[in-house]
């Protein structure tokens, strides 16, 4: 990666070099292993790394900020509880965390109460918030948007739509079929084909020398 090309290529290679440099620092995996041994200090550090993901995912799935906060709290305590089961040789901490967080959020949103609440919230979210909150939200949005676009760019429009409904909205594939007015078999296939592409895209990024 010793490129000397300026501009956009230059920015990219700097960024990658920096990431490679980070590998030496304690990773989420290290923290989670320590948490699994009952290390509360490590948990506080892990919290700072994973709470934005846990909360953000809950917020995407359940919409309601208050319910999302409850779900995030439950999830984070659950992560503490189950941490002794984490084995870094068998998977990355962030995937482990994501599985727990998504399952929790989906369980919550499938209760009728949450479905009602989130419909109300879509409407109320459109009204303004305070300046500081708005900027915080914008920062996070701008930051994540590029990565989301990157990871979803490989999908066709119909695959993206199906994955978004299933993953970010917590819908079953039958609901996805109904919402998109397509046969259930098609919904099933779109989700699967989309995930295959995402998986392959992920491994080609992660596996680059």
């Amino acid at each position: 990666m010793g490129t000397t090309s300026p501009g956009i290529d230059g920015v990219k290679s700097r960024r990658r070099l920096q990431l490679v440099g980070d590998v030496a620092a304690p990773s989420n995996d290290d923290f989670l292993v320590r948490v699994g041994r009952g290390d509360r200090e490590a948990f506080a550090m892990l919290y700072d790394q994973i709470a934005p993901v846990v909360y953000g995912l809950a917020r995407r799935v359940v919409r309601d900020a208050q319910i999302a906060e409850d779900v995030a709290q439950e999830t984070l305590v659950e992560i503490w509880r189950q941490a002794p089961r984490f084995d870094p040789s068998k998977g990355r901490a962030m995937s482990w965390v994501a599985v727990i967080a998504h399952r929790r959020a989906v369980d919550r949103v499938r209760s009728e109460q949450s479905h009602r609440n989130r419909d109300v919230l879509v409407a109320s979210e459109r009204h303004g918030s305070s300046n500081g909150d708005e900027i915080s939200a914008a920062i996070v949005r701008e930051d994540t948007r590029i990565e989301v676009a990157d990871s979803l760019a490989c999908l066709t429009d119909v695959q993206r739509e199906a994955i978004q409904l299933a993953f970010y909205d917590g819908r079953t594939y039958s609901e996805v079929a109904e919402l998109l007015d397509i046969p259930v078999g098609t919904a099933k296939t779109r989700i699967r084909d989309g995930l295959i592409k995402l998986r392959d895209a992920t491994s080609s990024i992660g596996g680059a020398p």
Partner: protein
Amino acid sequence: VNMPGRDDIHLLAGAYAVNALDDLEARRFEQHLTACSSCRDDVTGFVTALGTLAASAAELPPRGLRATVIQAVDQTRQTATSVSKRPHNQRHTLAFFAVFSIAACTAFAVLFVSQSHKNSQLSAKASVVEAADARTTQLVGGAGQIRVTYSSQENGSVLLADGLASAPAGQVYELWFISNGTPQRSDVPVRCNAACFDSHRTRTGLGFGACDYRRTDGRK
């Protein structure tokens, strides 16, 4: 309710990975997983994609959450490493771990390091924006506009370049701070449509009206 026949049960690996099966189907599929290694491989691969999708949704948690969680954790016992009984609603997740544990996926190391790096940046940005002395100012120039939030308490500034025209190919923007009449270039390249964080650059006494950004050749 859609009952998959024997022929298409393999197609459910994707829906299973994103928790898009109802309880009955999920149970049937888990049973199928015990006998089908290709579906186990699929689910394992999909879980890493799921990690990426989840990380992409990162958002600043409410300020009070940290203290609440830490306090709750103080009063919560961890599970033993080998546990045979568990509450019903954790069934999916735990079955999932079992599947996930079948193959290690080291290829994703770089990606998740990137995520963890991003999240620590996120915390730094959050502390600036949420600081009691945080102030935001808007800079307008020929290329568009940017917003800068800065805090002396946190000794940093956060730049939001969401109103900036794309830099020409091969070029990036730079941000210059003027401190006591001396221009200093920020170490952080300014990406369009991105927010960046710059530590040790507050210059609150001078005001950001003196800041400028311009196109450069991107060399450092």
